[in-house]
Structures are given as structure tokens and as C-alpha cells.
């Protein structure tokens, strides 16, 4: 019961945040609403028993990635976005397509979705277990992603460094 209530509440918060991201014109509000979405998603994870995932969600997504976004928004001092009408396609095909697709999927989920219910903390994603999986079964993907991150760091440094001065590179 409590479980369902919590789910509904934070689900509502989630959706609200997402919709807010859509309607807000200022990127910083979008970023903050996204942070809200992520926070409530962390709670959903907790409800699903994935406590470690929840913690990492908060630390990595809300605590690092979104801070990066906010940082960039502040740095570029991005203002209100002006509603230019650059693309008819997006409106003519994209939005209807998205609607059709999501409606269909929702219908499938409701009609054909298994009614299987998960009790709170059904599957305790304890850090030990996750770590075991990560470093035994998924060792190779783990290492590969590490390389990916390394490359990403270098790419970011090179891209963001000032082309004229070498200052940016020194910073990185």
C-alpha cells in the first residue's frame, strides 16, 4: 500500500518534472526540473530495491552531469529560447509519430503487460552483488566503458579548450 502511494507520488513528481522540462523556456528551469525528475527516479529505484542504483543515480546524474549542464548554462549565459519555426518536419511527422508510437506501446503495456507485481525491495541490489556482477560477468564491458570515458575526457578537453590560446588545454 505504502509502496503504491510512494510510487504514485514520486511518479507524479517525475512526470511533472518532465512536462515542466517541456514547457519551460529557460534552460536553467529545464535543468532543475530534470534534476527533480532524476531525484524522484532515484526514489523509484529505491522502491524497486535498487538502492545502489538509486545512490549512483543521485551522485552521478543529479550530482555531476546535471551540475555540468547548469555550469554550461551559466557559462554561456543562455537566455530564454526564442520559438523560431525552423522545422515543419518535426511538427508534421515527428510529433504525430511520437504520439502514435507511445500510444501503441502504452496500449500494449496495458493490454498485454504481465500483471506481475514487485514487492518493495524485491531484488536487493546490494553494492556487493552489483560489484561482483560488474567485475566478473561484465568485466570486459566495464573496461571498455572506462576507455570510452577516457576518450571522452580527452575529447572534451580538446573541444572546449580555446583554439587560439593553449590555456584550456593546460586547465584540463
Amino acid at each position, binding site marked *: 500500500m505504502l509502496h503504491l502511494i510512494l510510487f504514485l507520488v514520486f511518479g507524479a513528481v517525475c512526470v511533472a518534472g518532465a512536462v515542466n522540462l517541456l514547457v519551460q523556456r529557460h534552460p536553467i528551469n529545464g535543468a532543475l526540473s530534470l534534476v527533480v525528475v532524476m531525484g524522484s527516479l532515484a526514489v523509484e529505484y529505491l522502491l524497486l530495491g535498487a538502492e545502489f542504483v538509486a545512490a549512483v543515480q543521485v551522485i552521478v546524474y543529479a550530482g555531476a552531469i546535471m551540475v555540468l549542464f547548469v555550469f554550461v548554462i551559466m557559462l554561456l549565459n543562455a537566455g530564454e529560447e526564442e520559438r523560431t519555426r*525552423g*522545422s*515543419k*518536419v*518535426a*511538427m*508534421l*511527422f*515527428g*510529433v*504525430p*509519430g*511520437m504520439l*502514435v*508510437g507511445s500510444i*501503441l*506501446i502504452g496500449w*500494449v503495456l496495458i493490454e*498485454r503487460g504481465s500483471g506481475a507485481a514487485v514487492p518493495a525491495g524485491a531484488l536487493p541490489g546490494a553494492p556487493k552483488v552489483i560489484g561482483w556482477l560488474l567485475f566478473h560477468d561484465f568485466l570486459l564491458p566495464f573496461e571498455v566503458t572506462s576507455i570510452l570515458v577516457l576518450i571522452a575526457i580527452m575529447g572534451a578537453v580538446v573541444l572546449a579548450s580555446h583554439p587560439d590560446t593553449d590555456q584550456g588545454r593546460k586547465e584540463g
Partner: protein
Amino acid sequence: MTPDLHLWLIPVLPLVGAVINGLFGKKFSQQTIAGLALLFSGAAFAVVLSVAFRFSALATPHTETLATWIRAGSFQADFAFYLDHLSLVMLLVVTGVGFLIHIYSVGYMGEEGGFYRFFAYLNLFMFFMLTLVLASNYLLMFIGWEGVGLASYLLIGFWFTKDTAAAAGKKAFIVNRIGDFGFLIALFLLIKHFGSLNFEQVAQRVSPLNPETGGAGLLTAIGLLLMVGAAGKSAQIPLYVWLPDAMEGPTPVSALIHAATMVTAGVYMVSRSHLIFERAPTALTVVAIVGTLTALFAATIGVTQTDIKKVLAYSTVSQLGYMFIACGVGAFSAAIFHLMTHAFFKGLLFLAAGSVIHAVSGEQDMRQMGGLRTKIPWTFWTMTVGTFAIAGIPPFAGFFSKDEILWRAYQASWVYWAIGLFTALLTSFYMFRLWFLTFFGVYRGAAEASDEDAAPHGHGHGGIHESPMVMVIPLVVLAVLSVTGGWIGVPASLGGSNRFGKFLGPTFESTTPGLKAGPGAASQVAPPGKESEQPEPQTGGASEVALTGISVSAALIGFGLAWLLYYRNPRLPQQIASRLGGFYRAVVNKYYVDELYAALFVKPLIAGSALILWHGIDQDVIDATLDNSAHGANEVSDSIRHMQSGNLRSYAGWVAAGAALVIVYMVWVGTR
């Protein structure tokens, strides 16, 4: 089995030389290049010599398999080398003469551009030729066969800036293609019916067969096709036309490839497959007839030529005709014997001619020479030896080989003999004509006058001069060989014992005694007991001596005629020519054969391909397809390229729409 002979070294050494010179030669100095080329060709020669010395101790034939090349079902072709008496002789000739000519070239090509190119090609040729000779199966032989074709093409067109040279190279290559076509089909037939190309296996499977006396058969077909290939490579009628033009190449090349070694490949191949020919009398007859005709034909042309190298070229053709006569009457050892001696004296003649040309600064027209006897004594004397040798004057090499051929031809049919004899007369006539024109009388050239004449060879240092030692030494060596080379084959009737014939015996003795009649069967007049390889003195020894006398006298008559016409009173030839009129003109123009071929084959072929292949297929079908498809693609993309508006959100829209389609499809499939 014999301990490792390292036969593979023999071809590979020149290849190494070719690779080194060809790849890095540009950087090297001439000394380095020449040193390398000589080193590797000489090394090959040395290996051959060592093999030759140990040869008597070997269990022959000796096969050395390096690797399996093709294995398809029961058919197998290896990289294998095959050494027996025949290939040994060929090896000695090729490497020996080749080495000498390498030395000669160092001096001769001294002032030429592309020094490294020349020697790279030359070594390459050695490699392929040795592969051809050493091959243990027809396929590997074919590789060498094609390879020497390539090398000769490269070397004929060595001065590729000269149109005539380039054209001659192409001509040689294309004409050879025709022959190779026949050869290739013969190989296919062999594979189809004997399931192998290996010499020994083919021999095993052929030997039980009986001679196809009754007209044509499988073996006849194979034999004829092989003959086509041989005719192409060895410049026999009707494919001889490339050889005279091949004289566009540097003289050492003419000596090595187009006199001594490559052109004899056909003879070698025919002798190599003698088992097949012995069982195909028709084919043998054809071989003999072709050889006879070629000999006569080329000789007549040679009489009228004025270009010194052309004369030698036609004499080469006619001598090759001799060899084919020998093959045609089943006297393979005689053919090889003549091949060897011919390699000596014809190589000598060419080199000497080259030395003459060198001396008179690139002039090749004999009418512009004369009286060189005193100016270039070395060349003169060596040339003299060569001339006597080819004219068949005893005791020079040519005498013995030619005499044996004539004798065997007589045994086969007096027709061959008669024509051969007349050819011999012509041969000595035009050779001495060349001799007189070049060395006697007064000098008619202009080289003395002007010091700077840019002749094709461009030996800028005018004035008539003896060639450098590096060129003279090979001349001398070859001259000695031309004198003594024949002595190893002195027929019994002249108090010798035909050692050469005996040596080659094991290769050529027919596997089944009953088939000794092969040559006899070739010409229906086979007298019994004349079939063995060596002529027996007890039978017809006297007649043989008589024939020898006749041929010698023929040679002398030729000499006399030449002396009369070209030394005693040089006016006479003109009058005779005018007397002969049309016939003479025809002969001068080589019987218009080139023009005939051009009219018959070349022009129709070019026209047809231009009409059908070029305009019809290439332009209207292939190009049209490509152009139209490209044009269509261009238009289509031009119409839909506006999808790529450069706007991110539009792309996102397309993606979303596509995803929606996929989802719809999946849901439709899933819920059906």
C-alpha cells in the same frame, strides 16, 4: 635419391639479380649494376657447371620438388624441377651463352640510358628461361614460356621511345599469344585425357598407346597444338613474322633471346614431348613440312636483306626451320645438337654484328659498310669463324649438326633433304654475302667523316674503332665454341662416335622398342633399321659420306656465288635483281607477308572491335548503363536531398516517424 642439388638456385639467382637491379638499380653506379648482374648470372652458370660435373654420378632423371602449387582432385602440379640429359644441355647453353652475353652487354650498353633496366630485364629473362628448361611439368614450363615472352617484349621495346621498337615489342607479344593459345589448349587436352601435366606421368600414360598411323587422333591434335605453340615461340611459318622485327631491340638481346635461347624453346618443347609426337605421325609430318618450308622461305628472304641484323634474323628463322626438320623426322638429338651449335655460332654472329654496328656508330645497313676487315680485326676473325660455322664448312660446329640433320632428313624423305640442301646453299650464300659486304671492298659509310652522328645507339665517339675487350672476349670464347662445339657430335661415318647423340640417348630412346618406327612412319618411305637415334655406320655409311660431300660442296658453291657477286664484280646483283623483277621485289618485301597478315587479320580485327566491342558493347552497353544509372541516382537524390535540411529537429522528426513505423509494424506482427 641424389643429395640435394639445389636446382632451385639456378633460376632463383638471376631472379635475385633482377629484383635487386630492378628495384634499386636507379641509385647504383653502372659498375655496381653490371657487377650484380654478372655475379648472379655467373653464379647460376657456376651452379649449372657443378651440377654438370656431378651429373654422371646422378640417378637421372632427377626431380626436385619445392612445393605443391595446384592440387585439384587427382590433378596436381608442383613447383618441381626436373633434370635430365636434355635439360642439362639446355641449362649449359642458356647459362653459358647467357653469361657471355651479359659480359658483352656491359661493354655494348655502356653508353645507353636505362642501364639498370636492361640488366634487370636480362636477369629476369634468365630466370624465366631457366624455369622453362627446368620445369618438371608443362604448367611450370608454361610459366617460363610466358615469362620469356614477357622478357622479350620488354627487351625488344627497350628503347620504348622509338615507335618502331614499341610496335615490334607489341607485335612479338601478340604473335606469341597466338602460339601460346595453341599450347594452352594442348595442355588442357593433356589434363583432360591424361589427368596430369607432369612429364614423367604423361610419359607413363602415353607410352602404352600405339602410334596413330591412321590419320588424326587425340595425340595428333595435341601434337599439332603443341606445334602451334612452338611455331609461335620459335618463329616458324606462319608465325615467324615477329622475329625480324624483334631486331629493333639491342643487339645483345637479339643474340641471347632471338638467336640463342628463347626462340629455341619451341624446339626444346617439341623434343620434350617427343613421346607424343612419335605416336602422332601426322603431327610429325606437319612439323617436318613446316620446318622445311620455313627454312627455305626465310633463307630466300635473307638473301635480299640489306640490314645486317635482319639477315641474321632470317638466317635464325631458317636455322630454326632446320631444327624442326630434325624434330619432324624424329631426330630429336640432332635437333638439340643443332640447337646447341646454333646457339654458339648465331650468338657469335649477332655479337659480332653488334660489334660491327658499334664500330660504325650504329649503322646497320651493309651497303654502308665494307672494308672493315683491317679496321676491326678481332670482330672480323670471330665473324669469319661464325660465318664458316653457319655455312657448314668443316670442321666448324655448324657443319656437323647441319650434316646430321640433312642425313636424317634424307633417311626420312629425299624431299626434305633436297630442300634442306638448297637452303644450306642459300645460307652459305647470304652469309658470305654479308661477310663480303661488311668486311671487304672499300668503306662506303659516313661514320669516318662526321664525328657526331646521333645513330639510334648514339655511340657519340665517331670513327671506326675496335670494340673494348669486355666485348671482344665473349666473341673469342664463342668463336672457339663455334669451332669446337661440333666435335662432340662427330658422326661415326667420319671416324667419330656421335657422343652427343649417345649422351642424349636415354632421354630420347622410345620407351617401347616397337615404336622406334615413329620417324619412319612420319614419312612413308622409312627404310628398315634406320630408326635408332644414332646413325649406324654399317648401314649407309658410304651414302652418308656422299651426302656429307654434297652438302659441303653446296656450302662452297654458296661461297663461290657470294664471292662472284659481291667481291668480284659488285655490279652484277643489280642486273640480276632487275632481271628477276617482280619476284625480286616480292622477296625484298618479304613476300608481302606482313601486308597480307595486316589485310587478313589485323585490319578486320581492329575494325570489328572498334565497331562491336568499342562502340557497340563498351559505349552503348557498359558506359551507357553506368552513365544512366549515375544520372538517375543524381536526379533522384537531387529531388530528395531537400530532406537534408541541415536542421537537427527535422532529422529528429524523420527518426521519430521511422521509429513509429517500426513500432507499428512490430505491434501489428505481435498482435496478429
